[in-house]
C-alpha cells in the first residue's frame, strides 16, 4: 500500500474499525466506572445496555458509521444535565477516551482527531 493511499484512509479505518471499538470498549468503560469524578452518573445503570451505548459512542468518536444527530445527543443526556453534568465531567470522559487509546498504542495525532470529534458534541451533550 502506498503512503498516499494510507493518508487517504478514513480515521475509522486507520484506528482498526469495528474490531478497535470492540477492543477499546471494556478498557474505556472500566476507566469511566472507576473515575471518582464521573462514576456516580453510572450508579444503578444496566451494564449490558450501558456497554452497548459506550460502543455506539466510541464508534462515533472514532469517525465510524452512525446516524446520531445533535438532537439525539441532547435527549440522551438531558437527565444527566439535570443532575449536574457539566464541562468538568465532559473533560473527564474525553481524558479517559484519550488514555484508553494511548493504552492501545494509538498515535497522538489520531488521538487528537478522536478528541476533536468528541469535542464537537460538547454543546449538545451539555444542552447549550
Amino acid at each position, binding site marked *: 500500500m502506498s503512503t498516499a493511499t494510507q493518508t487517504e484512509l478514513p480515521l475509522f479505518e486507520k484506528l482498526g474499525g*469495528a474490531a478497535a*471499538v*470492540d477492543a477499546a*470498549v*471494556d478498557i474505556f*468503560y*472500566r476507566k469511566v*466506572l*472507576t473515575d471518582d469524578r464521573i462514576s456516580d452518573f453510572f450508579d*444503578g445503570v*444496566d*451494564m*449490558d445496555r450501558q*456497554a*452497548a*451505548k459506550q*460502543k*455506539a459512542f466510541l*464508534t462515533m468518536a472514532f469517525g*465510524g*458509521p*452512525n*446516524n*446520531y444527530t445533535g438532537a439525539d445527543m441532547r435527549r440522551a443526556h438531558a437527565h444527566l444535565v439535570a443532575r449536574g453534568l457539566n464541562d468538568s465531567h465532559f473533560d473527564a470522559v474525553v481524558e479517559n477516551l484519550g488514555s484508553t487509546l494511548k493504552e492501545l498504542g494509538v498515535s497522538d495525532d489520531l488521538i487528537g482527531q478522536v478528541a476533536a470529534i468528541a469535542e464537537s458534541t460538547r454543546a449538545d451533550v451539555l444542552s447549550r
Partner: protein
Amino acid sequence: MATIRYDGRDLPVAPGESVLDCLLRNEIQVSHSCKAGACQSCLIRCTSGNVPASAQFGLKDTLRARGYFLACSLKPEGDIAVATANNVRVEARITGLDRLSRSVMRVRLQTTEPIEYFAGQFVSVFREDGLARSYSLASLPAEGDLELHVRHIPNGAMSGWLHAEAQLHTSLWLQGPSGSCFYTPGSTDQPILLAGAGTGLAPLYGIARDALYQGHKAPVWLFHGAVTPEGLYLTRELSALEHEFPNFHYVRCVLRDSDTPEVEVNELDKSILGKFKSLAGWRGYVCGDPALVNLLRKKLFLAGMASKAIFADAFVPSASV
C-alpha cells in the same frame, strides 16, 4: 428477490435493504437507534435462514447460539424468517412438589410436548386463571421434567399457591424459554464463576451441571449466598457434585449465624474477590436479586472480566406481588 417471513407475512426485500429497514418500511415496530451495528437496539431472532457472522458482530455467544442478530446489519441474500417475541404456550402438568428449604419449593413439570431450552433460561408460568410469573430452569433438557425453585414471597399470589395449595397433576401453561444466561460449549479452558443468592441458585445449578456434564475442563466455581444458613439449599447435591468433578468448587456464604467452617460469614462479592485477584479471561454468571446482580457484575467487570463474558439474570419482582 429475497423475502423476510415475519408473523405469517412474507415481505419482499428491496435491493440493498437491511432487515431493519424492510420491517420498518412495512410499519412493523422494531426498536432501533444507531443503524450502524453498534448500539444493538435492533436485536432480532432468526428462526430459519442464514445469518452471516457480520450481522452478529459483537454479540454475546449465548445470543449467537439462539440465532440473534442485528437487524440493521443484515442485507438478506436468501429467504429468512425472523421473530421478535415468542408467544407460543405449551401445557405442562405438575409432577413434583418438594421442599428444598423452609422457603423454597422445588416444582417439577412435565410438558405435553417437548420444549427446547438451555439450563439457566427462564419460562413464564401461567395458571389456569391467567396469573403469570417467571421462573428459571434448574433442570437440564436431558432430564425430562423441568425443575423450578419457587421462593415463598409473603402474600405472593403464585408462590403462595404453589407452596400451599397446588396439587400434583394440575395443569399450567408455559411460555418461553427466554433469557441469555446459559452455558455455551467451547473455550473449555476458560474458568467459570457462578454467583447468586437465594433462588438465584436455580439457574446457576442448571448452568454449572450443564458445563460439567458437557466436559468443561477449567475450574467451575459456584458461590451461593444467603442471609442465614437456613437459606442455603441443595447443599448435599452440590457437595456430591464436588466429589464427582474435581474441577468443581462450591462456596457457601451467609451474612450471619454460621456454625460450621464450611459456611463462610462474608458478603458474596468480598468472598469472590478475596479468592481471585484478577478475573481477566474468566466467564461469569450472576443471578438473583437485581441489586446484588448489578453489584456483582460491576465488581466482576472491574476485576478484569470482559463485559461480553458476563451473563446476568436479575429476578425482577412482580409489581402485583
